[in-house]
């Protein structure tokens, strides 16, 4: 027995004395007849929502019973608490702007990084292929769509997930060697993470567009935007991202689908240094306008912030908290701390969404992007209650958004000490998705996301909610179970 319990043992009957001397407050689990009876006697009873654990799956429930047996439950609980502690201690900063080939670990000249779990060229979805072709044209490796497609299929180009290189990318998430990248450092744990700069809305590479204007914009970002941002950070100093995200959450952002406040705050941070930089006035104005015109500019910072913190909890023995949720447009995948680098995948689901003028569900690509790192980090869908402006996604009223976030506490290992939600009395956002709780409760993480057109070259067609496939959580859960079963045999 651990010390926490020993200290309780001495107290003897204190718990019962407390019960007898305070008001009885009941949580009722089961027939509501009993709740009604208690209320009829002017007592207080909260009717608890209860669903059959593991959605009634006997095999999973038997596994759950083992995982919830004292010793194992305790060790999971401790490991998960430690993970939440690490996430809460983590302090991500913007430390600079670099170049993929120079800064991203393991980056190579013939390597293209992409969102989600591993995927081959053949299996890539339309927008992912479009983005890859666009990147090859941008790099000068190909001159046309045809050439780019041939090169991509030739085997001379390698494809690896961003996640394998400390990097995350929204939507297609394609990163090629010359692209400029944000360098984020979780100072507490010395973990770096990388992400490209956000290109804006409309026809953009991350949605699979690769027309000339897309490549031209990427070139401008490389030649003008990135150097100026790099200089501004050198002048103004590193930027505390944890604080910016915390502030943005109190200004109506949730950090995934709404980044208007975060983008504004970032501009405030950067503007004086940009003005003091050596760039031309025209470039300064263009850079400021570019950031201003793009509400999602900040998304490419919330994402690597999350990545730099979540990487710090990878590989903790007995820890069932997710370190990644990511989609490549073909498959949805997750990683679990104690299970290391293994991906658990299933076909990427459809997004239930609202569409931009003229587009319909018919046009939509299945779910894509690394941006679910936000939810894994405890913001995005998990902070929906902080973002009343986008409650349309979750049913239309601020009350729906509250419910949405409250539901996520059910599957989280803890709460954020930095990211707080005004409407919930400044309660910390649900943080650290516990795969055991996901399977136990039958509740999948809430994710809100953008929707890409299924064909390359078109771009964003809408945004909405996506329900991750339960099977990836169940598969990971079974791996957790097998791990503990083996461990029990080894140390009887």
């Amino acid at each position, binding site marked *: 027995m651990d010390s926490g*319990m020993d200290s309780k043992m001495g107290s003897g009957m204190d718990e019962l004395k407390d019960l007898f001397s305070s008001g009885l407050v009941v949580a009722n689990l089961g027939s509501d007849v009993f709740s009604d009876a208690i209320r009829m006697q002017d007592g207080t009873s909260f009717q608890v929502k209860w669903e059959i654990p593991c959605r009634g799956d006997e095999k999973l429930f038997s596994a759950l019973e083992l995982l919830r047996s004292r010793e194992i439950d305790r060790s999971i609980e401790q490991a998960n608490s430690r993970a939440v502690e690490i996430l809460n201690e983590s302090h991500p900063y913007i430390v600079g702007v670099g170049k993929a080939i120079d800064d991203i670990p393991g980056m190579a000249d013939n390597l293209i990084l992409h969102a989600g779990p591993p995927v081959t060229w053949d299996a890539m979805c339309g927008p992912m292929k479009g983005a890859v072709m666009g990147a090859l044209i941008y790099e000068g490796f190909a001159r046309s769509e045809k050439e780019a497609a041939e090169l991509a299929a030739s085997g001379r180009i390698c494809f690896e997930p961003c996640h394998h290189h400390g990097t995350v990318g929204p939507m297609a998430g394609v990163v090629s060697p010359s692209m400029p990248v944000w360098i984020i450092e979780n100072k507490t744990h010395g973990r770096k993470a990388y992400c490209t700069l956000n290109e804006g809305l409309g026809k953009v590479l991350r949605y699979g567009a690769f027309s000339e204007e897309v490549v031209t914009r990427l070139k401008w970002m490389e030649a003008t935007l990135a150097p100026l941002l790099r200089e501004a950070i050198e002048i103004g100093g590193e930027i505390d991202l944890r604080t910016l995200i915390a502030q943005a959450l109190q200004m109506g952002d949730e950090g995934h689908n709404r980044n208007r406040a975060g983008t504004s705050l970032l501009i405030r941070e950067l503007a004086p240094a940009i003005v003091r930089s050596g760039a031309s006035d025209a470039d300064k104005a263009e850079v400021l306008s570019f950031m201003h015109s793009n509400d999602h500019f900040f998304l490419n910072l919330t994402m690597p912030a999350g990545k730099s913190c979540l990487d710090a909890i990878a590989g903790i023995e007995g820890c069932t908290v997710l370190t990644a949720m990511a989609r490549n447009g073909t498959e949805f995948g997750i990683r679990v701390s104690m299970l290391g680098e293994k991906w658990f995948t299933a076909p990427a689901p459809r997004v239930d969404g609202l569409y931009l003028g003229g587009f319909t569900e018919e046009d939509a690509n299945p779910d894509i992007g690394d941006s679910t790192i936000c939810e894994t980090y405890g913001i995005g869908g998990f902070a929906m209650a902080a973002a009343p402006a986008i409650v349309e996604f979750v049913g239309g009223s601020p009350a729906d958004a509250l419910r949405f976030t409250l539901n996520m506490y059910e599957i989280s290992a803890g709460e954020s000490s930095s990211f707080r939600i005004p409407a919930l009395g400044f309660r910390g956002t649900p943080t650290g998705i516990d795969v055991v709780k996901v399977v136990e409760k039958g509740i999948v993480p809430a994710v809100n996301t953008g929707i890409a057109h299924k064909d390359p070259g078109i771009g964003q067609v809408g945004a909405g909610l996506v329900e991750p496939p339960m099977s990836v959580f169940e598969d990971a859960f079974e791996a957790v179970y097998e791990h503990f079963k083996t461990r029990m045999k080894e140390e009887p």
Partner: protein
Amino acid sequence: MRHITLKASTYRDSVALMRISKKASGLEGVSYVMVAMATDTNLDLLKEAGFEPAEFAGAKANDLLIALELESDSVLDEAIDLIEKEIQGGPAPSGAESQEVAMGLDATLKSRKDINLVLISLPGRYAAYEARKALEAGRHVMIFSDNVTVEDERQLKLFAEKRGLLVMGPDCGTAIINGIGLGFANEVPRGDIGMVAASGTGAQEVSSILARCYGMGISQMIGTGGRDVSREVGGVMVKMGLRALIDDAATRAIVVVSKHPDREIADEIIEVARKGKKPCIIHFTGQTDIRSDANLTFTRTLAGTAFEAARGAGKQVEGFTGFDEDAMGAVLAAGRKMRPGRKYVRGLFSGGTLAQEAVFLLSDGIKDIHTNLKIGDFPGLDDPGESVGHTIVDLGDDTFTRGRAHPMIDQAYRLLRLQRELDDPETAIILLDVVLGHGCHEAPGAEIAEALMTALSGGEEPGKVKEPGDRPLVMASICGTHGDPQNYANERRALEAAGVYVAEHNEGLCKLALAALKGRRDG
């Protein structure tokens, strides 16, 4: 036709606008809708949809743009109205219940630190699972559910004991904590008698009699579930509850009510009580060793337990209440008039402890009582659905409740069985317990009365009309108080109007039955 409206400097979030677009596109005759901020991206989309730049000349990013393509002019007003209303009104609130959302157990316990007890009535396997979580979270637990394995029960209770937490149950039908009845509980006043009960209806009977007959109240009633006193579980919660009441300043006298415990466990319980010094009335169903020993009093009946408890708490009680001489005389007379072939007692009980007590008390006067209760040397029933000779059945037993609600909630089977016993020419006396209280049937007595009225008047089949004087006597006791939601007085009146002899309590009921049988033999 195409239509464009620009609303200067009107900002709405794009997601809200997408929803409005979606709504408007559902209107008949509307082929294209874009309600959006007039950003360059959106204006590009508009161009692609076939709108001319001239149509939205001068639009700025802060302007709200409404673009429509319509099959005819006639829908324009309707579409614009709808869009304007949506833009102005915002989304309709969906329910006012925002804060009071029902959450799962973990989240509920985390967000409401003041919750101190978790009441569980779930299928057995899940009950143990959730109970463990509640205990881990430092909360007391009451498990109403049965079908929890004895091993789970043992583990839960040992764990709880270490943390000073209660586990009431599994199969704990009733408890009263701080004056609030949990599960099936009678409305009794708060007072200074504390109870520990390893028996549901036993506890209800004692607390109801205390309230109704002696005006005495309960400080706390800790239920433990009947299996607590088994060797496997070791009486963990009975002993813990007892210690808590000994420590509790608001408790003056203590009652322990239990189905028959394991011998060793009984001794341990008695030892704890003895050391406690407070007056303690101990009632193990069926015990015959009736005595007083320092602060301890051992009782044979539930009614006697209530009487001793009232005295122990300092009440000046005149004498043992509940035996109505007139009623005794009446049943004696009625017994004499009965046809010679009628010779057996049939007890149809909804309360297990009440049934047990009936078996023990009736065995003073009659032999060979068959019962589905597994007690003493009493012969069992091959088929609990068929009465044999003198029979006492506990209708709350698993065999009757599988796929059916407990008879304290749903009397359908009891009424069916009542009819069968009435039709049996060998039935002399039918005994019933009518249990009131929170959670119980809303008017069990009245329902029985109605069934009897129908049966005894012959119902639909004239052939079944009984000769006057040739029918079984029906007797009942009501376990309940005047404060119970069912209305005690109405229940009693209804039963009496249907010719039922109503005793004050279960012991009184058994005495009545024995008196009637005596009349049978004398006659």
